[in-house]
């Protein structure tokens, strides 16, 4: 039973790292209490934090943010 639980946790962590699972669902399925524990579990299983999904909405958000952020970042203190 314990092996099954660990397998489920690893699957949930892999899905999260691959961007297939949201943060809250990943925490629930991996059986961790909060995001700090999720980060620790990822590190323990040699998995990276996920990159965001490549959707048109997401690309549009990044473009709009870039237009705002880049001039400020380049000319800030």
């Amino acid at each position, binding site marked *: 039973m314990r092996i099954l639980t660990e397998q489920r946790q690893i699957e949930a962590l892999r899905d999260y790292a691959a961007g297939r699972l949201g943060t809250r669902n990943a925490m629930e399925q991996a059986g961790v209490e*909060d995001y700090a524990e999720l980060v620790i579990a990822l590190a323990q299983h040699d998995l990276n934090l996920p*990159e965001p999904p490549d959707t048109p909405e997401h690309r549009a958000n990044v473009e709009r943010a870039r237009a705002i952020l880049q001039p400020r970042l380049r000319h800030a203190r």
Partner: protein
Amino acid sequence: MPVDITIIVIDAPPLITLAAARSLDYLLYPDLPVIIPDAVFFDATNAAGKLGAQEILDWYREHIDAVRVEPTEVFATAQLAAQAGRRLRDLGERAALEVIRSYPLAPHERALLLSDDRDIGRVIVIDPDKLILLTTWDYLRQLEEAQRIQSADGVIEAVRAAGRKPRTRDLWGDHDPEIRDAVRRVIETMHRDRPPKP
């Protein structure tokens, strides 16, 4: 007319990720006001010894002029529920929604919403022309592109290196006194700034 921008951190993961990499100051690099809903701040700091919790508290105290922990009714209600032994779900997201809804943005205002929950997209439906949703990764990539940091990957590597064995979750009474004080300050501010209901 120049566009006024505010950064709103709408869930705890961006704070914890940047704190774990000791990079919270990156949030201040664009020189914009930063708002954190009280429940999100509490989520990120509510257990002594948790990854990033102390760093977030220290950073907030150092930058109280640039970073505002915004009080919400949702969090106040949750505190009362907690005293009665009930725990409300999705507190951070609900507090973030309250903050966003209480800030009607003028035509020249925009808000950059920082979130790592891929299910949070529905938040921007409130005002899709003015609310711009970014993940921590996106934000780090913009910093890298502007040559303000050497490598976004390097930050993520630092987070992974910070992974450590978790402690058992503490209850409120067992929390670090500094954390309890920080939360109390949030609640006191809320009561001071909000007029009593008729």
